[in-house]
């Protein structure tokens, strides 16, 4: 297509422009939803529900109320009683555009104007929030006067949501649980699969072709087929030995079993592609299969081992179904995906909690993914182009 459209210069310019635009459109659709929760997770809780996240970078106009300093802080100046101060804790943090003293008319006066409040009482509020409240007679009472003002609030970003979620919503603990599940469940299948893959690729024995066919068949067996019998098996084993049936060991083995067909398939097709001369010359030198495997095949297979490790890591970290069936829902066993699912039920509309929790659950896979994308893509190509 590129060559064809290169025939006329004018068409090519608009064609190229269109391509850039189209790709930009796709990129936006594919990134905006994620950016949305990242931005939201960093916003102030009250601002999240007040305006869309896409407005959060520009200042927003908000009407608020506050109290002036109490009468106890008044001083006498030029025969008047004066209270001075600033509406904002940090002066200049936002800009007042208008103010008022009645809730019905919160923006009665413009910033900088001197408002006449009857009986010679005046109030002046400036754009930076500083005010002068003056009266010919002494102020009395305990509380400062209530004033209303409209101010442009600068975007306010905070990491408060992360503190809340990590410490009091149990996400921190679940993060640890997810790691506890994921790391062993990634490492165990690699070893077992590597030996099996070597045998299937380079050793001759009866039933080999059948085994390969079975493994390719098992690649696509839905997880759903395994859940009920395994749940029963685990309950049975638990009852028999008087141990809990929902344990980390149980889920490590389950993930190992479910990941094994793909691991063996991926590793076997890679190992089968290694040069035959390598094995044969080693064998002539008197090396046993075990030595050939550990000293030649395993080091050469590093890229495919890395590919599988990334796959398994992402799959286990992101899994919800297996964790829901084989682990309990207590604080000591609830993984991140399970916790997020629970929060969706219990904290339905609290977007500051949900977006922050979601971002914490996806940050690890995203980091793994970005740093090891090369291996991930390689595994994807090797794993799917042949079999599926």
């Amino acid at each position, binding site marked *: 297509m590129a060559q*064809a459209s290169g025939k006329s210069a004018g068409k090519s310019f608009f064609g190229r422009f269109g391509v850039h635009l189209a*790709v930009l459109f796709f990129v936006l659709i594919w990134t905006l*939803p994620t950016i949305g929760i990242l931005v939201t997770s960093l916003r102030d809780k009250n601002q999240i529900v007040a305006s869309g996240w896409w407005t959060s970078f520009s200042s927003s106009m908000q009407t608020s109320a506050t109290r002036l300093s109490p009468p106890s802080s008044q001083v006498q100046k030029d025969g008047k009683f004066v209270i001075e101060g600033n509406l904002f804790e940090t002066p200049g943090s936002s800009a007042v555009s208008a103010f008022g003293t009645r809730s019905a008319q919160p923006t009665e006066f413009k910033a900088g104007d001197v408002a006449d409040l009857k009986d010679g009482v005046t109030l002046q509020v400036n754009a930076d929030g500083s005010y002068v409240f003056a009266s010919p007679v002494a102020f009395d009472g305990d509380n400062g006067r209530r004033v209303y003002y409209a101010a442009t609030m600068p975007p306010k970003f905070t990491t408060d949501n992360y503190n809340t979620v990590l410490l009091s919503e149990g996400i921190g603990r679940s993060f*640890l649980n997810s790691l506890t599940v994921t790391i062993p469940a990634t490492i165990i299948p690699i070893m077992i699969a590597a030996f099996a893959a070597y045998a299937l690729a380079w050793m001759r024995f009866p039933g080999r072709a059948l085994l*390969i066919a079975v493994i390719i068949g098992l690649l696509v067996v839905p997880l759903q087929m395994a859940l*009920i019998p395994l749940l029963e098996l685990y309950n049975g084993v638990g009852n028999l030995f008087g141990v809990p049936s929902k344990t980390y060991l149980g889920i*490590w083995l389950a993930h190992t079993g479910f990941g094994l067909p793909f691991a063996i398939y991926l590793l076997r097709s890679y190992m089968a592609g290694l040069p035959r001369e390598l094995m044969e010359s080693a064998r002539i030198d008197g090396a046993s299969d*075990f030595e050939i495997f550990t000293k030649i095949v395993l080091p050469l297979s590093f890229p495919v081992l890395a590919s599988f490790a990334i796959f398994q890591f992402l799959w286990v970290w992101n899994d919800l179904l297996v964790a829901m069936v084989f682990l309990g829902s207590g604080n000591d066993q609830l993984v991140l995906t399970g916790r997020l699912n629970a929060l969706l039920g219990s904290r339905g509309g609290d977007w500051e909690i949900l977006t922050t929790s979601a971002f914490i659950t996806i940050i690890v896979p995203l980091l793994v*993914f970005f740093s090891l994308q090369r291996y991930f893509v390689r595994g994807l190509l090797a794993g799917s182009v042949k079999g599926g």
Partner: protein
Amino acid sequence: MASQILSAIIVIVVGVGGCLAYFWGANKLVDLVYPSRGVSGTAAVDNLRRQGLVRPWLFIGPAILILGVYLIYPVVSTLLYSFYDKGGDNFVGLNNYRWLLGDEEFRNSLLNNLMWLIVVPAACTFLGLIIAVLTDKIWWGTIAKSLIFLPLAISFVGASVIWKFVYEYRGDGQEQIGILNAIVQAFGGQPQVWISLPFWNNFFLMIILIWIQTGFAMVILSSALRGIPEETIEAAVIDGANPFQIFWKIMIPQIWGTILVVWTTITILVLKVFDIVLTMTNGQWNSQVLANLMFNWMFRGGGDFGRGATIAIVIMIGVLPIMIWNIRQANKEGGR
């Protein structure tokens, strides 16, 4: 908490060490039982032959054991469960299957699953192909592909939260904070509660899976497109083919096999789709699918394993043609 980390570390060490010890020890044992060195010529040959018979099974043994316990036994067992009642004690013949056919919720799930099966693989493959072709032509294509590929790393639950926020609806008079409703409103439309819209809500759930899986289709198809020999396209250009003819008549036929693989891979995924429906609607508003229905029956009212197993069998039947096709394909390649 500390003990949890400790036990995880111990398991990693023991597990990996145990694996290594098993493979190394078993290997040594074979050498000891059937020595090939330091014995007479014929005995050595005999023993080497015996070693060759035993050793593959030592290597592959643990894998067979685990596959047997975690996949092969359960598949057979699930099939049996589907002929038994709730607790798995009494044989009920085809009762579960009969119940299934008459169950309103099941028929609804099956119909929804069929819609998913048609829409999601088609949309992923189509979008993936378009993006692969487009990004191939621009200097920042690699970055664009990376970003579109990114959702593949996100869990279905995480993606559900992300999209639930996109679909968020707030009542009349309130500022819409969901981007979809904000856009609809900006164009003068009426904000909607997208995930409970009858019928159409299914498509809003499908979008989530399409969003995740398009990157997969794109990467595979992009690499297939690169594999097309330049000469075939050049020859077509010389013959005066227009871009559309080149795309449809030259490029597509050459990557047809890959398209099929992408399609079937996503099809299998769609058959098992669970997390998205559970977290977005839990099957409410007629958005139920098979995998979620099965999960429901596994635990509903103390769990009905018979019905759960029967639904699992239905999912399995959906996968079966692809499984057979894969095995035949692999046999054709001669076990390579």
